[in-house]
């Protein structure tokens, strides 16, 4: 029983490492790397340097590099601007935080304005005007009485 359990654990561990060792996909990396001369992602470009970078990625995948390693090698050659998405650290983190902060600020501003406008509308309603004119009320009663008869 213990042997069986151990075998199952080893099998699970191997399966886990097999998943972790899945090679990166060429298409995914081409969509995440920017061509330095045309400033579009590699999958959108057929410029000479983009073609060369695609070949580099293909070669590194074949050599067994992970996506992170391939990206690091490209950043080493071409600088961080080669990444389509800025890294989530340091100054580049602002590129991720600012849109969220702006969205949050926008929600607060719209909410505050909506609250202010709704309060103004409430305060503009005259309680007196909510009551019917006595003459009109009398006529309505007469009409209703006629229908009841």
């Amino acid at each position, binding site marked *: 029983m213990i042997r069986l359990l151990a075998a199952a654990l080893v099998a699970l561990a191997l399966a886990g490492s097999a998943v972790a060792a899945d090679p990166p996909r060429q298409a995914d990396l081409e969509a995440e790397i920017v061509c330095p001369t045309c400033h579009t992602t590699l999958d959108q470009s057929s410029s*000479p340097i983009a073609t*060369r970078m695609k070949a580099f990625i293909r070669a590194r995948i074949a050599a067994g590099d992970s996506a992170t390693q391939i990206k690091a090698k490209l950043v080493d050659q071409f600088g961080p*601007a080669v990444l389509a998405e800025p890294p989530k650290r340091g100054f580049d983190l602002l590129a991720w935080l600012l849109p969220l902060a702006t969205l949050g600020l926008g929600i607060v501003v719209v909410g505050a304005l909506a609250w*202010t406008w709704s*309060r103004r509308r409430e305060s503009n309603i005259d309680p007196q005007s909510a009551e019917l004119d006595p003459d009109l009320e009398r006529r309505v009663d007469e009409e209703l009485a006629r229908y009841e008869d």
Partner: protein
Amino acid sequence: MTGRARTVGQIFAIGAVALLLGLLVWKLAFGSGGGAADQLAKGKHPAAPAFELSRLEANGSKLSLADLKGKPVIVNFWASWCIPCKDEAPALQKTYEKYRAQGLTVLGIDAQDFREDARRFTKRFGVTYPVVYDGSGSTLGKWGVTGFPETFFVDRSGRLVGERIQGGIDTERNKAAYAKGIQAALGQAQ
């Protein structure tokens, strides 16, 4: 309170629009990306934009334009994947050999390229003049480089002279400007 909130909102919106318009105007007026090349095209002789980059052949060893102070320099921007760069490489090497005794040097700036590809390129074409590596293209904006190859001439005082040459230096279109550029770089010292 409501009126004040509305006024603040309006001021905020108008301010945002004004800011965007200001950025657009600034971009149109000053943001052409022309760099030193634009000044040169207007007949001015700006100081050659400074840089410090690693040498192509020796990782870690740096070379700056200031290191070449007092020398006339032909600054050539290139990349190994650029076909006209291959065509002009022998002509640049010949220039270096011909004018080296007069103090003139050629400085290659390999930009937006794989370092290993660039090394293969210099070996293949027998380049012996100094070459620095600018993989990220950090110098391109300051110089106003818009494509490869491009060539500039720097005189002994460190100012840009002659014309910026776009395309191969050995093409019929550029030969005369190239010869004049060399003379301008050397001539300032006379």
